[in-house]
Each structure stands twice: as structure tokens, then as C-alpha cells.
């Protein structure tokens, strides 16, 4: 190979860049986020009524859009009543409705958001619930 010095340096840089995710994770434990849905508020509810406003599968992927729609509905149209897919009414409010049950932001919201490196800007305006330090 001609100019092998330069080419090999270049190739080493290339390999180092491509394999970064591999050596970056050596010796690190990857725990998947475990959500806690056993807050006192949820425990108080009877077994059958422990349901979110929409089914779990929808909430998992669509909660951010639901919240965004709620915000638009409340802030722009002044409408605070949400009819869910089971025709039940809910108060559209992050602080008063969502966080009433999910009062454990650190063990609920933040778990996945931190894992996925997502930083939602909910709490730029809303007041984050005060949590007892464990």
C-alpha cells in the first residue's frame, strides 16, 4: 500500500467513529426503565378503575400528542372537558388530572424521558409536583 501511514491513520479514525457505540457501552449496565404506578392515589382506586384516560398502548406512544391537544384545547379554546374513547369525561389538566394519580414524576415521567434523552418542556410553564425525597 502506498502512503500507508496516512491511510491507516484515516482508517483507524473511521473505525473509531463507527464503533463508538460499542466501546462506549463496555462495562455499563443497561437497565430498562421500570415505571412505578403504585402511588397512594392509584392504590386508593378500586382495582377495576385503575385506568388511565386512554388505553395503555395508546398512552405509551401518544401521551405527548394527547397533552398537546389538551393544551391547545384549554389555552386556545377554553375547553377543559375531555371525552375519552370510552365516553367518560375528564378534566383536561396536567397538574390536576394526570399528576393527581401519577404524582411520582421522578419514577414515572422522568424514567423514560431520561432513558430516551427526551426533555419535554412541560415544566417550563407548569409547576412540577413536590416529591418526598426517598
Amino acid at each position, binding site marked *: *500500500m502506498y502512503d500507508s501511514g496516512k491511510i491507516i491513520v484515516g482508517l483507524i479514525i473511521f473505525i473509531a467513529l463507527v464503533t463508538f457505540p460499542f466501546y462506549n457501552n463496555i462495562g455499563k449496565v443497561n437497565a430498562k*426503565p421500570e415505571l412505578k404506578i403504585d402511588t397512594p392515589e392509584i392504590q386508593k382506586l378500586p382495582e377495576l378503575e385503575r385506568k388511565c384516560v386512554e388505553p395503555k398502548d395508546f398512552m405509551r406512544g401518544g401521551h405527548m400528542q394527547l397533552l398537546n391537544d389538551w393544551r391547545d384545547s384549554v389555552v386556545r379554546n377554553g375547553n377543559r372537558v375531555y371525552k375519552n374513547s370510552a365516553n367518560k369525561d375528564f378534566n383536561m389538566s396536567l397538574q390536576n388530572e394526570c399528576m393527581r394519580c401519577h404524582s411520582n414524576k421522578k419514577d414515572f415521567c422522568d424514567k423514560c424521558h431520561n432513558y430516551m*434523552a427526551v426533555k419535554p418542556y412541560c415544566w417550563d410553564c407548569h409547576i412540577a409536583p413536590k416529591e418526598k425525597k426517598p
Partner: protein
Amino acid sequence: MKILFPFFAVIALVLLVFAGVNMAGMYFLFGIVIPYAALVVFLIGVLYRVMKWGSSPVPFHIPTTCGQQKSLPWIKQNKIENPSGSLGVIVRMALEVLVFRSLFRNLKTELKDGKVVYGLEKWLWMAGLAFHWSFLIILVRHLRFFAENVPPVIKLIESLDSFLQVGVPLFYITDAVILVAVTYLFFRRVYIPQIKYISLAADHFPLFLILGIAISGVLMRYFFKVHIVGVKQLAMGLVSFKPSIPEGIGVLFYIHMFLISVLFAYFPFSKLMHMGGVFMSPTRNLANNSREVRHINPWNYPVHVHTYEEYENDFRDKMKKAGLPVEKE
């Protein structure tokens, strides 16, 4: 044919993974085996191609330049367009690799009223730049799936990319840019007759493939949600060599990942190798110093040279008779 074949090839790939995952349940194959295999093919293939290029001799000193060469002291040299040393070459290469300097010089030649006229043609440069940079940003952004504690640089890039704060999940500017740019790059190959004539299936296939990757990614992020935490678990499993298949990720993700795997595996065999090739082109990476430094052709074999001394030895008597001056009596 040159367009339809690669188009249906990509469609077939999508259907293949759809059938494989949704009907046959081959999660292990599409989620673990193929991504690993694709990465191995990519790495070994790129190394092989680059080393093979490195082994080809460059018989002539052939930098292409477009500026004043280093000459007499009172003639101003164009140090970047016609570099005479390593620093100039590095700057020139950096401009080429980062902002596609030579493509910027692209001209359009037209016949107007029987006269040849040259006009600016920056669209290809702009679309190329938009495409490559947004692809790079998207690639870097994806590292958030491959690190437990995402490096702050990646978070910063991600927040800049989504700073418009449109919708949720936040809209990425690069998502729109890459779709527009790739679409332009495709239509350019169809619309301009000369370009259409020289475009081959191998030109269209990567475009369709990348378009497929971008569309599947966009659909996954904004429209048909997948189980994103599961996606990260799968990705982390792959990079820490403890692969696992989390439940219920959604077929769209497998389509996305399979198309990326195909792109990676296809890379070393295709025009996409210009990623390595741009660094290896002797017309760019040589300094134009052929008057200072002799470029030795690596092919050179010893040539018998008949020197003047030998010539004089052969013909001394005849030269003397003819009255020609000789060096040795």
C-alpha cells in the same frame, strides 16, 4: 427500467421484512442477525476498498487545480486552489469534504441564439449539501439510542435540530430537509435529459433506499408510534453484545432498521464509497509541487540510460574528424 427496477427493489425489501416480521415472526433474524451482519460487511468492505485503492500506484502527479501555481516570488499564489504544501492540501480537502467546493464551481452550459453561454448552477450543490449535512446530523442524533447516558453534544445537536418546538414529539428540521433534498436529487435525475441519460439503476437505488429510510423514520416518529423504549432496549442490547428482542416494538421499526442494514451492507459495493473515495482522489489530495519535488512513478523499472559520456565514447573519433568539440580527448 433504470428507475423502476430499484424502486420495486426497495418496495420488495419493505414487503420482505413486513412478511418476515409480521407473518413469520422472524424477529431474531431482522432484529439481531441482519444488523450485525450488515455492520460487519460495512466495516470489512470499506476497509478492503480503501486499502485496495491505497495499493493502486499513482503513476503521475495529477492534482487538478484552478488557481495560480506557486511561481516567482512576485506572482501571487492561490494557496488553497493550488496548494504547494500539506497545509494547503488539508484546507483544500476540508473545503471539498465539508462544503463540496468543487461542486460549487459547477456550471451550466447552454446554447443561446447559436452561442455557447455558461450560467451558474448551484442547485445540485445546495441539495447535495443539504442532504449530506442533514443525513450526518440525523445519524449523530440517533446516538441517543446507543448510549445509556447520552453525551451532552448529542443532546445539544438534538435540541438545535428541534428548536422550532413545533408539535410533539418535537419536529426535527433535518427530517424535512432530507426529504426535500433527496426528492430533489431524484427528480433532477428524471427531469434533466442529460442526467437522465447517464443515470443508472445504481444511482436510483441508494436514493430510493435513503428515501425509504427517511420516510419510515418520519412515520415512526410523528405518525404511527412504535414502542420507543423497546427500540432503545434493542439498540442497547446490540451495542453491548447482549442482544434481546423487546416485546411489541412495531413492524415499522423493523422496516426502518432493515432498510438501514441494507444500506450499510450495500455501501462498500456501491457509489456510496465516495465517502472514502473523496479522501483517496489523487487529483485532490496531492500538492501541486511537481517543480519542486520529483514524483516517482512506483511502476518505474530500471531503464538503461545512454549517457552523453557513453555517446562520446562511441563517436569520439568521428566527432573529432568533423571538428566537433569533445569533453575528453
